[in-house]
């Protein structure tokens, strides 16, 4: 039993990890064919993982409706939103779901007038919070935070036409801040991050890192 729970997943991670790793160094056409097929497998598994995420969301709200916890009315709205949209998606303007997705129709309407505006508005609410944070919490408490704020102000003014009107040095300074120190720091950070990603990936392939299996 332990073999299936522990050894098999680690063996799979090792084998396919090695294939994915070697594929970048072995250009040979036969290895390339295997590699391409595995890539489309991974894409398919992304989709299955999405089903998992949607299922846990819907189950959470279904439980709220069942137990009539406070605010279960909102969960009902969530369920209605999901089922109507998914049903229209599958109806697919009459061609149903065993053909290509139709380019127009009800699903696109839902996308244009519910999905798109709600998503964009949700993010734009952040602009208000930035303003309130700018007034109340962005303080030059330490020397470091002070330098950060000075650089931020130069870039913010340098990026809008008013910056050019005040003096043409501000946009050049803003551009320089982005091109030299910012680029240098990003390169230094990338070198470090890449080592972190490679080290973690190696640990996953060799079965040293098992946290992603979610406990034993």
């Amino acid at each position, binding site marked *: 039993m332990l073999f299936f729970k522990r050894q098999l997943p680690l063996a799979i991670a090792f084998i396919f990890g090695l294939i994915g790793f070697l594929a970048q160094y072995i250009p040979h056409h036969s290895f*390339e064919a295997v590699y*391409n097929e595995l*890539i*489309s497998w*991974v*894409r398919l598994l*992304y*989709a299955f993982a999405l089903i998992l995420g949607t299922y846990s969301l819907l189950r959470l709200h279904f439980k709220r409706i069942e137990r009539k916890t406070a605010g279960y009315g909102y969960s009902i709205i969530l369920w209605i939103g999901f089922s109507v949209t998914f049903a229209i998606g599958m109806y697919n303007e009459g061609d149903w779901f065993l*053909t*290509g*997705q139709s*380019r127009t129709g009800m699903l*696109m309407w839902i*996308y*244009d007038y519910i*999905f*798109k*505006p*709600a*998503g*964009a508005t*949700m*993010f*734009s609410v952040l*602009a*208000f919070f*930035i*303003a*309130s944070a*700018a*007034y*109340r919490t*962005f*303080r*030059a408490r330490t020397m470091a935070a002070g330098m950060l*704020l000075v650089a*931020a*102000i130069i870039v*913010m*003014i340098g*990026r*809008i*036409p*008013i910056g*050019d*009107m005040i003096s043409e040095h501000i*946009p050049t300074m803003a*551009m320089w801040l*982005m*091109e030299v120190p*910012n*680029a*240098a720091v*990003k*390169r230094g950070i*990338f070198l470090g991050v890449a080592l972190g990603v490679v080290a973690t990936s190696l640990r996953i392939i060799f079965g040293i890192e098992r946290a992603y299996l979610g406990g034993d």
Partner: protein
Amino acid sequence: MQRETLAKILNLDRRWIFLMVLICAIGARFVDIDMQIFPKKTVKAMYDSIEEVAKNKGTVLLSMDYDPAAKPELEPMSRAILRHCFSKGVKVIGMTHNPHGQRLAQTVLESSAAEFDAKYGEDFALLGYKAGGGTLVINMGQDFRDAFAKDFANTDIRSLPVAKDITSLTDIDYVISVASSGYWEAWMIYGHDRYHFKFGTGVTGVIAPDVFPFIQTGQVTGLIGGLAGAAEYETLIGKPGIATIGMKPQSAVHVLLVLFVLFGNFIFFWDMILKRRQEKAWKR
């Protein structure tokens, strides 16, 4: 001025601040002061690249990898790039890595094409959405037709004149990724560094700083950053669009924000001086 009043000023209910931002943004929109916009080097680099593609009648692959949340900042870029391409007769192949992005890509592509009566199939095509990110880019580099056998409306791409003799990403003159998150990196890591096509990107203001190191290395030729970048591109192609109009309220709110930061810190330091003076008084 006592420290209590300073504290009161600092702890202003944040809803007043929200109101001030709203008034400033709406107000600035209706005041008509003309804004001279000076295009930056990186935006000019993308403009020149498309001009070059136009010169040798090439094809541009525009990957619109963004979703509704980032549409306000990125669609003006896609529209400006598409207007530039269609006005110069450059062939465009559209696609997206983002599951929510297919619809957006479709609307902006069709509306921009209609302005220059570019025909679907001859002048432009839309491959639509496919999952995989970096893996999809590798697939397109190795065998374009295997990655996208059909366009987004399920027609075989070999029947579309604009895409029929593309066998790999290397056959495309200029790849542009207008991206809201890491998609531009997938294009660079798994695409440009392996297949060496010319690569440019348009990103949200949040991501622009991460792209700069790759401009120096020559991996990215041409970058549009945020709404300001889009306004600059609109100025370059001489067609002021949403981005340019948006610059007025954008600038107004920016100035308001800078004032908030300066004012907040000014009071903070004043309060610090008073506090030190009080402590010195207690010590004596």
